[in-house]
């Protein structure tokens, strides 16, 4: 008689699993500020990969249970997909250049997104269920646009820190190596240039979805306050986009400041909106 093989219960993976993994990863990243050691780096990366795996399992389990892709399942899942993409980007960059202290900037955002996901609706959006194809496209472009916004936000914060260090002529802090101003500026620019069209597309498909929902049992009106606030935020990003495209001679620091403010405003507003309404689409 052989003992029965140990069965891994995928359902046992909870938000707390990957939240704590990311928290430990952040701890290891922070430890490098005190004493730079390659072990800390690899442990941080290992914890991030462990968290990413757990989060993937969690999203797959939820997606199967709801019978829908994670992006359509609920606002809760949408936020987790956003966090998942950010962690994936972080792991990719860290594998390319392990000297960059990206985790210190990325992990707090990831922790906020994952933490916030616990306070928003975990129920599938009924309208998106009915208009599955367009709904999937709407959610995808919005999440990718948000990745661009988050990237630009992080790059502009790093740019301002790097610029300040260089202007005040301070040497590099151990464990806080940042990218060059030129690279930060380039990534920041591309982040905005890609994010704004994606967000615009997301807004446009949102309006189209609203129009289509008029003929369904639960129509979603465009004059709901969540949509109005989202529109205002989108206009802010659009203004930043036009400013960036029309004046390439702006100083890098000014670009970084405006990007940080605009993206920060967008992130805070949208996240608070999610929190206040239980999801942008809300319940009414």
């Amino acid at each position, binding site marked *: 008689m052989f003992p029965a093989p140990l069965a891994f219960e995928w359902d046992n993976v909870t938000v707390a699993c990957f939240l704590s993994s990311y928290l430990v990863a952040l701890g290891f990243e922070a430890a490098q500020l005190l004493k730079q050691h390659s072990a800390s780096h690899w442990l941080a990366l290992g914890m991030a990969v462990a968290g990413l795996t757990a989060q993937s399992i969690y999203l797959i389990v939820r997606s199967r249970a709801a019978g829908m892709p994670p992006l359509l399942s609920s606002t809760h899942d949408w936020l987790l997909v956003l966090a998942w993409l950010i962690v994936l980007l972080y792991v990719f960059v860290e594998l390319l250049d392990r000297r960059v202290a990206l985790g210190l900037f990325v992990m707090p955002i990831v922790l906020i997104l994952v933490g916030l996901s616990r306070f928003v609706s975990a129920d599938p959006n009924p309208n998106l269920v009915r208009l599955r194809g367009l709904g999937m496209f709407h959610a995808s472009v919005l999440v990718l646009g948000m990745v661009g916004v988050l990237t630009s936000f992080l790059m502009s914060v790093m740019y301002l820190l*790097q*610029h300040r*260090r*260089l*202007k005040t*002529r*301070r*040497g*590099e802090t*151990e464990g806080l190596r*940042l990218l*060059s*101003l*030129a*690279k930060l500026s*380039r990534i920041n620019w591309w982040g905005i240039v890609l994010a704004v069209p994606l967000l615009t597309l997301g807004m446009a498909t949102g309006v189209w979805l609203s129009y289509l929902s008029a003929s369904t049992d639960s129509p979603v009106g465009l004059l709901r306050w969540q949509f109005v606030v989202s529109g205002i935020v989108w206009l802010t990003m659009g203004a930043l986009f036009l400013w960036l495209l029309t004046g390439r*001679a702006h*100083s*890098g*620091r*000014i670009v970084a400041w405006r990007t940080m403010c605009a993206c920060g405003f967008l992130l805070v507003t949208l996240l608070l909106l999610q929190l206040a309404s239980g999801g942008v689409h809300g319940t009414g």
Partner: protein
Amino acid sequence: MNVQVVTCNHHTADLTVREQLAFPSEEVLLRAYAALRARFPASEHVLVSTCNRIELYTAQEESVSAPTQLDVARFLSEFHNVPLDAFFNDLLERTGADAVRHLFEVAASVDSMVLGESQIVSQVKEAYDLARRGNANGPLTNALFQRALAVSARVRAETRLSEGRVSIASVAVGDFGRSIFEHFRDKCVLVIGAGEMAEETLRYLQGEGIGRIVVCNRSRERGEKLALAFQGEFRPWEQLDMQLADADVIVSTTGASEPIVSAERFRFARAKTGEKPVFILDLGAPRDFASDVASLDDGVFLYNIDDLEATCERNRKARAAEVERAERIIEDETARFLQELHHKATGPIIQRLRAHWHDISRDELEQLFRKLPDLAPEQRAAIERSIERIVNKLLHPPLETLRAESKEGTPHGLLDAIRRLFHLGE
């Protein structure tokens, strides 16, 4: 022997002080040597003036004629027309073994801001050569500086101090330049000045793959020579403003006695380029760029020698083990040098003692051979060898004692005793 050094270096003083006391050209240094000879005629002098240090080494036979720290400070004050209280507290004096050790540390680049940099060796050598040309050196400083260069070579051969980032340019570009630009392939570097520092910086930047090199120098001949050596272009001094505007990286290493680029001049030069990032490395002492150039706009990143201090300190900590090995070599060489020098002072007495005893033995042998005329030549030779051995064996204990005593300094008491005991005269 009495050796002293009065130093004002990157450990003791800011660049603002050092640039006031610097001797930026050969002409100024030769004038300084003339003034020093007139002021301290009993001393030998060597002045080491680099961007990180201004040091005056003096040596003389008698301690009474040695210039004090205050004497040297007064000389610097009068020569540079700088009030004494503006820098006196930034001076440091070392004497005797400490002074010798200090020079060995300087030459071996253990005392340098950029640990292990090679340029200091040639700077020390040039300082010594110039002292010779200025008739300011002498036997003591000759021995001291020649040994310093030998110690430097030994430290480089026996430690790994010269590995890694070992030039000011490498530290500046590594810590600041690479944080501004992704790479240098499409960048234009403007080098103002054509001295050794400019050459070393260009050598490093060329290794970084810099796109275009422009050399701007007052002396056309030197500028063209440098530009040619690095496949760069030479631009006459009159075109400096135009080049300032075009450059992405500016390295300035002139020996000018005051800033050559003011904020106003640089603002005018940048008017057509906007706030594009420009990395300025001002390696001049005195500085070539006015300090307010740094605050012109967001794109100007200006660094001088002192701004690299923190990075260099980190570099030093990372190589603490090599520094320790270098210091052990320096300690050993200092002791050996001083012993040899002190022992050299006992030379005349030893020679007289040896000559005196050999004279006695020769007289006695002649008397003996007169009494024994039938001795065969081989018998005479055997007796001569025996007497020679006896004299050498008798001389051995006092000579060893003198050698041992020389470790602590010239054994004046012992020398006096030998002189009196054996009637060797003054």
